[in-house]
């Protein structure tokens, strides 16, 4: 069970950042109307507004590199907490930014997951 949760967490993180870096509008598939994002302290609710926020971030291209992924069951009907740290390279910037992000994943009826909770913070040196 434990190994499964870590595998799901890692697979989700890989998928999420791959979409973010290559097809940002498709992130809308991972959120629902009840989803919440707190992005550098700004609170946004619902797939539409969350996707709009992420699409409008002031850079064309970026690349996430994952350093760590920790996952635990959240006890919400098969929910999983995924805690990621890594770095984010923006096109044209000399130095990558370090970040931490947490996702609370809830299973869907189709056997996948959607993001109910999402909190993102840059880690300044």
């Amino acid at each position, binding site marked *: 069970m*434990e190994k499964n949760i870590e595998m799901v967490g890692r697979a989700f993180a890989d998928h999420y950042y791959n979409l973010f870096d290559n097809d940002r509008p498709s992130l809308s598939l991972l959120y629902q109307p009840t989803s*919440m994002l*707190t992005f550098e*302290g700004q609170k946004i609710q619902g797939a539409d507004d969350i996707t709009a926020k992420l699409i409008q971030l002031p850079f064309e291209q970026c690349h996430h590199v994952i350093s*760590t992924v*920790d996952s*635990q*069951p*959240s*006890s*919400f009907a098969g*929910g999983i*907490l995924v*805690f990621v*740290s890594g770095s984010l390279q923006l096109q044209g910037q000399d130095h990558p930014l*370090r970040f*931490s992000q*947490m996702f*609370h994943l*809830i299973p869907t009826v189709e056997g996948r997951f959607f993001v*109910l*909770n999402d*909190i993102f*913070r840059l*880690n300044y*040196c």
Partner: protein
Amino acid sequence: MDPDQVAKAFVEHYYSTFDTNRSGLANLYQDGSMLTFEGQKIQGSQNIVAKLTGLPFQQCHHNISTVDCQPSGPAGGMLVFVSGVLQLAGEQHPLKFSQLFHLMPTPQGSFYVLNDIFRLNYA
């Protein structure tokens, strides 16, 4: 009390207890609690407190930079995402850390930590 205030109050209480009375953290965990500490997984209040009191430093001081919280679902749980710095006695430079708490309400009207994930943020 507004959820952001609850989260902030909890976080202050947690780190104050950690910094001054580490074994007092036992009251904030239960048997079902889970801690992942720098990748190491520990379950249950006793084992968690043993891990935290066994950390290789006598004194430390947590300084919180950011606290973000969100409700986690219909059971009244709260996710609290903290970043800050940790100063160890005798060390020149503070360590940066991030930590995620998933708080669940108790019948007595307070919260306990169901999920706890801690990571140092290396430069």
